[in-house]
């Protein structure tokens, strides 16, 4: 076994907002060790600056001729600009003379297996081609595929004898919070759909200290696992003789400089805090999780199954077992008890993913709704073939919050840029909770005294006028005062389905007038799937029927609007 050969230096650069890219970067780094690459991973401090530099016209076409590269993008094909960042980067690097090892990988959240659908084959291809470019010399072979997973951090623990030494009320993230974080208090948390409607949607009002925000801005918070989820997780551990009392204090230390302990995990933390705030007990296990379980289990039959789930051929089965029914890590641990019983504290940090912060479009205007932030939350609850109901982590956490509860949040710029000139109409298409950023903008214009039915056109869609037409009273009273033109599509109030796109067609004349004679901006927000595409087609038809453009020109017109940010989309799944 060679201990001294070191292959080329491999640098993994990642830009990660939700932790997905970082997760993949870590995986690539781990696997590169099999081929003796000297790997480092880096998150460029300033992606924008890096990109702007690469775009310089003065860079010669051979600037990067000594560079071998491969790009993997993590995108979502329900977005118009699907993986555009990765595609542009890939092109530009090639233009500058860099040598592309393998074609670009296009991870797609819409794939049944999520990003793994594209990244698994891309990573396989990467190693094959990297080894062609940098072959291992004689006597040096790649390390075995199923390398033992080494926990990234060392964990020591002690039972906390004085419960007061760790402030139970204090969040794990409290002492390392940034200056942009602040506390809000729940004013109220009201269900705005009727009880007989299938979906529970809340309008949650948060009391701030006057923090300012603009239309389109987003509030970010960290959800916690529900008490029932925490109890269930701890029960499953205990049942399998993994006895970690909730008051146990964990102390983490670094094993390698490649994986420093993040600031918020550096102090003493209790197991209870980790279970409530850090470990995502609802995350769906991935391929790598099963490598770890295979390593842990002492049952041959379990080991065989787990290893199967790590192979390319086993991905169909993995999908059927985990992704399709949305089976979470807690449930998998219950199923694979011979692995669970061998869990050690340090391995927990490999098995479980950290809870990611979640974004919500702010539905209030900071001027009109003084000292308040409102959010619209659809509580995610649905059945799959699993007996137990599926619960969305964040929405159910929020649903349980009561008046007086405190939450730590911070603000972020959203993607929407609303028109600054009050003369410019805003045509807003926001079915369901998509309406949130529009309520923000509408009340901002109301507060500025410039709101009118000419410059605020809202297409709102829901199932029924009397079930889920939330904020109805507000909109109708604004409409009565001539401050808003509200057009509703109630999909199930009649035999045939009426959606927002049908209403756009119905109001073609007004829409065209706003587009052609006044600089109207179009905004589309809401739950993805087909809606954005249908809406866009409806606008294209308006251009054809009212504007007399042919189909090609209508398409070019809309494309130009998208390019200049006059047509903006923000959708989520």
């Amino acid at each position: 076994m060679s201990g001294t050969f070191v292959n080329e230096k491999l640098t993994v650069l990642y830009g990660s907002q939700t932790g997905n890219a970082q997760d993949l970067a870590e995986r690539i780094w781990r696997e590169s060790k099999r081929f003796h690459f000297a790997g480092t991973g880096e998150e460029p401090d300033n992606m924008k600056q890096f990109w702007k530099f690469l775009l310089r016209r003065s860079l010669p076409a051979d600037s990067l001729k000594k560079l071998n590269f491969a790009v993997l993008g993590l995108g979502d094909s329900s977005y118009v600009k699907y993986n555009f960042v990765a595609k542009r980067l890939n092109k530009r690097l090639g233009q500058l003379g860099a040598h592309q090892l393998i074609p670009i990988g296009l991870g797609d959240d819409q794939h049944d297996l999520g990003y793994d659908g594209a990244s698994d084959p891309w990573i396989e291809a990467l190693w094959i081609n990297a080894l062609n470019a940098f072959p291992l010399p004689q006597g040096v072979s790649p390390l075995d595929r199923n390398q033992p997973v080494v926990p990234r951090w060392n964990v020591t623990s002690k039972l906390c004898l004085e419960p007061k030494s760790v402030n139970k009320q204090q969040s794990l993230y409290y002492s390392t919070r940034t200056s942009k974080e602040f506390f809000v208090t729940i004013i109220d948390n009201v269900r705005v759909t009727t009880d007989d409607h299938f979906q529970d949607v809340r309008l949650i009002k948060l009391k701030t200290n006057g923090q300012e925000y603009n239309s389109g801005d987003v509030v970010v918070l960290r959800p916690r696992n529900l008490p029932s989820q925490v109890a269930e997780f701890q029960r499953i551990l205990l049942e399998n003789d993994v006895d970690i009392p909730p008051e146990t204090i964990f102390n983490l230390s670094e094993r390698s400089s490649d994986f420093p302990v993040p600031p918020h995990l550096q102090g003493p933390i209790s197991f209870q805090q980790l279970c409530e705030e850090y470990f995502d007990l609802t995350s769906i296990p991935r391929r790598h999780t099963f490598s770890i379980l295979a390593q842990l289990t002492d049952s041959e039959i379990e080991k065989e199954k787990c290893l199967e789930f790590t192979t390319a051929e086993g991905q169909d089965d993995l999908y059927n077992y985990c992704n399709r029914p949305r089976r979470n890590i807690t449930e998998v641990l219950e199923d694979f008890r011979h692995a669970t019983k061998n869990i050690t504290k340090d391995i927990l940090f490999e098995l479980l993913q950290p809870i990611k912060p979640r974004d919500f479009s702010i539905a209030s205007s900071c001027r009109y709704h003084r000292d308040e932030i409102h959010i619209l939350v659809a509580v995610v609850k649905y059945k799959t073939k699993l007996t137990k109901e599926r619960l969305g982590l964040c929405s159910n956490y929020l649903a349980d919050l009561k008046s007086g509860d405190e939450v730590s949040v911070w603000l972020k710029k959203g993607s929407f840029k609303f028109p600054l000139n009050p003369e410019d109409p805003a045509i807003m298409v926001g079915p369901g909770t998509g309406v949130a950023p529009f309520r923000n903008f509408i009340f901002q214009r109301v507060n500025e005294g410039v709101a009118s039915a000419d410059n605020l056109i809202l297409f709102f869609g829901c199932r029924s006028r009397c079930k889920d037409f939330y904020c109805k009273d507000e909109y109708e009273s604004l409409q009565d005062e001539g401050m808003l033109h509200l057009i509703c599509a109630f999909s199930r109030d009649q035999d045939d389905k009426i959606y927002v796109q049908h209403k756009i067609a119905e109001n073609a004349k007004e829409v065209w007038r706003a587009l052609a004679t006044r600089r109207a901006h179009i905004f589309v927000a809401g739950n993805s799937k087909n809606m954005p595409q249908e809406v866009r087609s409806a606008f294209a038809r308006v251009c054809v029927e009212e504007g007399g453009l042919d189909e090609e020109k209508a398409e070019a017109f809309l494309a130009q609007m998208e390019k200049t940010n006059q047509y903006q989309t923000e959708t989520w799944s």
Partner: protein
Amino acid sequence: MDNIKSGDKILVLHVDSADLTDLQAELNSKSANTTTSLIGNIEGINEASFDGVIAYKVPEINDFQKVLSSLKPGGFLILTQSSSDSSQTELNLQIGGFVRVAASNAGEYKQFVCFKPTYTAGSSAEVELLKEVLVWKLSQNVDEDIIDADNLLDEEDLKKPAAESLRVCGTTGKRKACKDCSCGLAQELEAETTSAAPPPKSSCGSCYLGDAFRCASCPYLGMPAFKPGEKVKLILNE
């Protein structure tokens, strides 16, 4: 020994000719053109005349330069030494001018594989140092002329993936039998093509293991794993 190609000129350096029988046989099988020499006689060897040198069980090499010069550019050296003699060897090889040095263990011996560089001493290649310095000078906040990033995308890039490509075959609802199927599903699936009568129902042996092991007709699908013999209430689905 994979470095050796048929017809290669190989120089074998050794201490004791008795060691060589196996090695000689292997070299003959590869149709290598072999010359052997005692390690002490290396002075007389011609320059740049060998595709590879095999230094077999030699305690030390005094003059790596000589070995290097006997190789053609790109040629290899395979050096086998007892582990006790080899502590400084890797360093000496690198200082001696060999590249891509790899060490491995071969029983109580250490084996080193390395190569003579493909460039020869005295050759030159242009190094564009100055140009690179100018290009990569990162001037902060200078509003440089940049290209339009949208022009980087072409027709292909604007395309969305086909819906079928996003699906995993599992959604076609394939029925699958457990490994040690005792409930008859495996037979049923096999018999499907010949349309035999469905076999009698009997309890599946894998139910308690959890969904990952259950067959498609298992009544416990959707429920967690349980201990064999444990009484589990079946929740009737609608």
